């Protein structure tokens, strides 16, 4: 018979390390249905009949954040057989806050007191027996990082689950509060199950909006309950939510005073604090951050990364795989066109993104280390001020940063953003930051129009950043994304050396996700693209054709008119853009193929005439660049976004938004820019461009309804 054990605890308490320890690699990662919250479960090593359900790291079971709601719904409705509550021993008070709430659920609980190695190092001592007595449940000291105590924990948890060992719930609430809750319990005892009685009573006392909604009691019952609450509030001179929170912490304070002895004085500087004296120092913080990021990219991209990527492209594929497959196929007598499909179309097409994978792995590796050691929280802390201006928080910075390497892990990184609206907004805008695969296009266009300027790439990054800012401001004002900004109350966890295994699992998870996408979606698209680019109907017959007559050019020609106002209404430019849909590196390779130049890596002046057919004017090339940099990302990123978004509606909105945005921007660049430099004549399209510009400015500066409403709330509170 299967046993389900849930893992609950604060963020940064070592839950993930414990989960990895307990399940090995037998994990399944997905999303909780309909939301952007990651869902992880796995089977316990050595106990195949035990399923471990990892719950999101949460500080409380309030109704306000997605993670908390997802967790409480799971615990109340799906009732696991036992809960392992992980507590950070160096941070006991705040961790126990969640514990008091978990203990109200009438599910067997075993507490894993983690970080015991650090507790000992600090010289603190925790009387486990006393603590266990007070809380009413078993406590197992562990050190997940050092793999201490794991066996005992597993044994206790399974035992608790099998025997349904319920805790003797501690008496957290006192006096009139306890009275009021008891009254409420009496009033609702026939409406809810015995198991959840306590939980619901406390939540009703807090006027928990989700519980009220779920229970849907009739008015008379609600009024009766309200009466009890009001009486208590009057007596305690505080609102019910605050009363509960205060009492919980008062209780915890007591418990901790009795069982924990601390060596250091309160507020004394820990090692982490000493490190932070430098890292978040007023003057040194930003330079240090810049240096760290520079090093990460220098190693992963510029030096080591490029070496491995070039080797993968030139040697592995270019010198070994492609020729080998070519010879092999020739040897068995396959036809020329089929060989071309396999060697050039498929293998050639896949070589670019796969060659990119080593660089990505390196970037993920370093960023994982930075995340796991605690540095990223400091980054969010430092950057928050900037992001607050556009309705986001410092936590959004990390995905934007990662985007400069690749959009796929960036979208995945937005999981750490708590507010779902912010999370979605970050996912939609993060690909505006040019990724590594977009660099070839920038280089080629820069070469084409100005003989290659070194400032072209930085300028496009800058444009990307501005576009992100503009988009966020505009989106925040729409009803879809408006709302009170999420509270930015964030813990700065102690620095610790990340577990090597945790980092490698992280990196592997991301690289594998990318490779899976390459092996499937990109593979399919390469075949399709190759087919469309090599076959066509010429003189009434179907067969292999020259580039001008292939299906791709037919499609290109058919939709080229859409891009005429943007200046590049040629089928070659359109076809190249289409291939950008699959992989952004594909834009340049398609351009090369269509210009009859074969595989194109960078730009050389000899290419000028070949590309001139694509872009009638220089400004058209610029507009082409803008369009391809800011439209929807490559298929790998699109499918990542589909998975992480958790909602079809938002996914399609994202695609629509990105493509409409890039179209409008390209239009404005071509029409207004072209008008300014005299290349483009004034016409109806110009008028449209100006209207769009006006519209954009309006959207940027229009008053934010929700913000003004909030200001009033703040003023009301301060008064």
């Amino acid at each position, binding site marked *: 018979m299967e046993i389900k054990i849930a893992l609950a605890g604060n963020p940064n308490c070592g839950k993930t390390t414990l989960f990895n320890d307990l399940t090995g690699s037998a994990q399944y990662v997905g999303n909780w249905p309909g939301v952007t919250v990651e869902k992880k479960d796995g089977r316990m090593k050595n106990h195949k009949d035990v399923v471990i359900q990892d719950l999101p790291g949460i500080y409380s079971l309030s109704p306000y954040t997605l993670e908390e709601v997802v967790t409480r719904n799971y615990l109340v409705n799906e009732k696991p057989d036992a809960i392992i509550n992980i507590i950070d021993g160096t941070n006991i008070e705040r961790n126990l806050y969640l514990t008091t709430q978990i203990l109200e659920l009438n599910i067997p609980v075993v507490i894993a007191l983690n970080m015991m190695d650090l507790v000992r190092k600090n010289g603190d001592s925790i009387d486990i027996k006393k603590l266990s007595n007070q809380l009413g449940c078993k406590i197992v000291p562990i050190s997940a990082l050092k793999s201490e105590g794991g066996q005992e924990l597993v044994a206790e948890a399974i035992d608790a689950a099998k025997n349904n060992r319920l805790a003797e719930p501690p008496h957290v609430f006192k006096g009139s509060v306890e009275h009021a809750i008891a009254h409420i319990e009496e009033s609702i005892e026939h409406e809810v199950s015995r198991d959840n009685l306590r939980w619901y009573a406390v939540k009703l006392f807090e006027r928990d909006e989700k519980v009220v909604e779920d229970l849907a009691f009739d008015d008379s019952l609600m009024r009766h309950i309200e009466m009890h609450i009001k009486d208590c509030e009057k007596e305690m001179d505080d609102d019910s939510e605050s009363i509960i929170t205060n009492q919980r912490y008062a209780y915890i304070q007591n418990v901790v005073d009795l069982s924990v002895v601390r060596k250091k004085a309160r507020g004394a500087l820990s090692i982490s604090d000493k490190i932070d004296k430098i890292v978040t120092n007023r003057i040194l913080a930003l330079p240090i951050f810049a240096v760290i990021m520079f090093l990460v990219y220098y190693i992963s991209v510029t030096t080591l990364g490029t070496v491995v990527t070039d080797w993968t492209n030139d040697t592995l594929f270019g010198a070994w795989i492609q020729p080998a497959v070519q010879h092999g196929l020739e040897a068995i007598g396959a036809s020329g066109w089929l060989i071309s499909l396999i060697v050039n179309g498929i293998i050639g097409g896949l070589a670019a993104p796969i060659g990119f994978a080593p660089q990505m792995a390196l970037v993920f590796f370093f960023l994982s280390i930075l995340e796991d050691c605690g540095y990223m929280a400091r980054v969010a802390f430092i*950057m928050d001020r900037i992001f607050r201006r556009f309705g986001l928080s410092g936590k959004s910075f990390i995905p934007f940063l990662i985007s400069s390497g690749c959009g796929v892990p960036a979208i995945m990184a937005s999981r750490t953003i708590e507010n779902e609206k912010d999370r979605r907004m970050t996912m939609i805008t993060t690909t505006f930051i040019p990724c590594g695969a977009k660099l070839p296009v920038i280089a080629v266009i820069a070469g084409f129009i100005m003989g290659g300027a070194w400032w072209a790439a930085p300028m496009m990054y800058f444009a990307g950043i501005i576009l992100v800012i503009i988009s966020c401001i505009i989106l925040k004002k729409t009803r879809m994304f408006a709302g009170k900004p999420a*509270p930015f109350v964030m813990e700065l966890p102690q620095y610790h050396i990340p577990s090597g295994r945790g980092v490698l699992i992280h990196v592997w998870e991301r690289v594998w996700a990318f490779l899976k996408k390459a092996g499937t979606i990109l593979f399919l698209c390469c075949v399709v693209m190759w087919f469309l680019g090599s076959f066509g109907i010429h003189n009434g017959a179907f067969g292999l054709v020259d580039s001008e007559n292939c299906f791709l050019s037919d499609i290109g020609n058919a939709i080229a008119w859409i891009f005429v106002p943007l200046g590049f209404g040629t089928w070659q430019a359109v076809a190249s853009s289409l291939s950008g849909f699959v992989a952004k590196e594909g834009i340049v390779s398609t351009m090369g193929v269509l210009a009859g130049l074969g595989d194109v890596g960078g730009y050389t002046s000899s290419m000028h005439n070949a590309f001139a057919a694509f872009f009638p004017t220089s400004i058209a090339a610029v507009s082409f660049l803008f369009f391809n940099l800011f439209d929807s990302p490559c298929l790998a990123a699109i499918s990542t976004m589909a998975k992480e978004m958790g909602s079809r509606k938002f996914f399609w909105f994202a695609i629509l938004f990105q493509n409409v945005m890039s179209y409008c921007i390209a239009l404005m660049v071509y029409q207004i820019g072209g008008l300014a430099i005299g290349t483009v004549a004034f016409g109806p399209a110009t008028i449209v461009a100006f209207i769009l510009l006006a519209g954009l400015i309006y959207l940027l500066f229009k008053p934010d309804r929700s913000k003004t409403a909030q200001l009033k709330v703040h003023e009301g509170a301060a008064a």
Partner: protein
Amino acid sequence: MNTLKDAKVGETVMIKKITGSGPTKRRIMDMGMTKGAEVLIRKVAPLGDPIELHVRGYELSVRKADAELIEIE
């Protein structure tokens, strides 16, 4: 009325009351900033906001605008 926003770096203060309502207030309290809790103002972020506090044995970052909701003595 003295709020956390007015406190200086290095000062240790005690929380008297949290004003406001809704998610922000709840979050502030959930993190341990409750009546009677001792708070040490550790530092201010390089760009001027948010502020880093030491409360209940750990480091917490709070925006100045939200710190205004926390009354202290």
